[in-house]
């Protein structure tokens, strides 16, 4: 009798096996994600508190170096992407507007979408892919070669020594780069307007400045600041948590780009929702 009950129970459990295993796996993923986010938040809080030490010579030097890497070294790729984003936007909207004889309005269409959304978004993606991945690779290599452990043993807090300068550099540089992206994007749109759609540059600029508001600029800059903090936090956390040698460094770099992209999209939407609806 007992055997019959057991086999019935096993049969019932076999139907539940797959959903139970999937549910368990999902639970584990959620737990690991929450644990990682908690660690990243603690790291961010600690690095933020260390901003008060930024005037020390070594911290100042390291922050300047990071500002240079984030800002100056990214200008090339950002310039190309910004100009072509503006050109594509102008071409696509211009061709549609031309059907209604309204092509002179491409200035406002390009300016508003670049300043509100495309500028911070494209800058965030480029910086996440270039600077964020580089930070994760550098800190990851340091972690697997015991350089982070060496810092800890020397009582040099990695959050102060490594994370804080990168956080400050990205938080400062992202809005500046976004302004640069916005300007080049609008110029790129103007070039297409003048050469392909017969809208003079002066008309294009007048239209752009008439419809774009200060609020658009400030919300865009706020977004870019938040994106900078996200990229620094994700990249530094992934880098510092790296294990398992070269494979681990590769994983940290890939994860940094994926997680940053996801957060940039989600947080970008939330900020737009908060300020425009």
């Amino acid at each position, binding site marked *: 009798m007992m055997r019959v009950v057991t086999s019935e129970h096993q049969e019932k459990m076999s139907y539940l096996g797959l959903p139970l295993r999937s549910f368990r796996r999902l639970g584990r993923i959620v737990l690991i994600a929450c644990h990682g986010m908690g660690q990243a938040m603690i790291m961010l809080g600690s690095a933020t508190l260390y901003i008060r030490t930024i005037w020390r010579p*070594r911290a100042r030097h390291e922050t300047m170096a990071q500002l240079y890497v984030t800002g100056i070294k990214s200008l090339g790729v950002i310039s190309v992407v910004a100009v072509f984003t503006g050109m594509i936007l102008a071409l696509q909207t211009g061709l549609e507007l031309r059907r209604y004889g309204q092509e002179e309005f491409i200035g406002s269409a390009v300016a508003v979408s670049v300043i509100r959304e495309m500028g911070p978004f494209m800058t965030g993606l480029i910086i996440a892919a270039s600077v964020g991945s580089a930070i994760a690779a550098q800190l990851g290599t*340091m972690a697997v*070669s*015991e*350089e982070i*452990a*060496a810092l*800890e*043993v*020397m*009582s*040099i807090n990695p959050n102060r020594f490594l994370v804080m300068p990168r956080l400050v550099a990205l938080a400062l540089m992202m809005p500046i780069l976004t302004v640069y992206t916005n300007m080049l994007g609008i110029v790129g749109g103007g070039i297409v307007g003048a050469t392909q759609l017969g809208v003079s540059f002066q008309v294009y600029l007048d239209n752009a400045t008439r419809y774009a508001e200060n609020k658009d600029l400030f919300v865009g800059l706020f977004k870019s600041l938040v994106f900078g903090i996200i990229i620094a936090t994700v990249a530094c956390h992934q880098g510092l948590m790296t294990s398992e040698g070269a494979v681990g460094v590769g994983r940290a770099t890939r994860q940094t780009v994926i997680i940053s992209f996801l957060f940039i999209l989600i947080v970008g939407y939330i900020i737009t929702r908060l300020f425009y609806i």
Partner: protein
Amino acid sequence: MIKFENVTKRFGGKAVLDGISFEVPQGETFVIVGLSGAGKSVTLKHMVQLLVPDEGVVRIGDDVISAASGLELERMRGRFGVLFQGAALLQWLSVFENVALPLREHTKMSEEEIEKTVLEKLNLLNMQDAADKYPSDLSGGMQKRVGLARAIVMNPEIILYDEPTSGLDPVTSRLIDGLIENLRNELGITSVVVTHDLHSALAIGSRIMMIDGGKIVENAVPHKFIESKNETVQRFLESQYITRRGGWEKGMENHV
């Protein structure tokens, strides 16, 4: 000076250290030997709380380092210098800057004083000519010597060496051994050395402990270690062609 009391550490459910207890007296060169994965480096990392035991306590003098945090942990770690297996030099800093880093971070010394101290330590390790070079320009042995200069620049009470001679040629290995001996003889520094190299262990150790499968299988002075009846120890000795009548008996006279 350093005391492990029933320390257990598990990774993924497997006990890498299984309730080990031992003591490192002040001024000794205590060598930990064992096969790869035996738990030697894990033991060393517990001494500076790079790892925290699942069970048991690690003491440094009267302080419990395994339970310390914040400023208290920083103070306790300040008593240590550590030479990591790969030297762990910061790649974007020059040799001089690497060695000067702890002084710049933790002292109020002037740049002149820092320069004098750093060059003095580099001189001790015959690395003064490499002060302006970067770690990537140096050989493995040179990097280890710079790592050692950084480990001693704050004049620590205890130095931990993780595989100080691994990957080095025999001549450089003996040079590093000599440096470890000099530091103990001249400065009275307590040293803990983790190594596979029994020749090195017998040359510099005042006591040798062997770990196998997370447990201590032998803990003795060198001449007693060589005479150990433990099978694992005997196999380990034989694998490195060391016998009771080996040439190391002569070199051990100082330690008996």
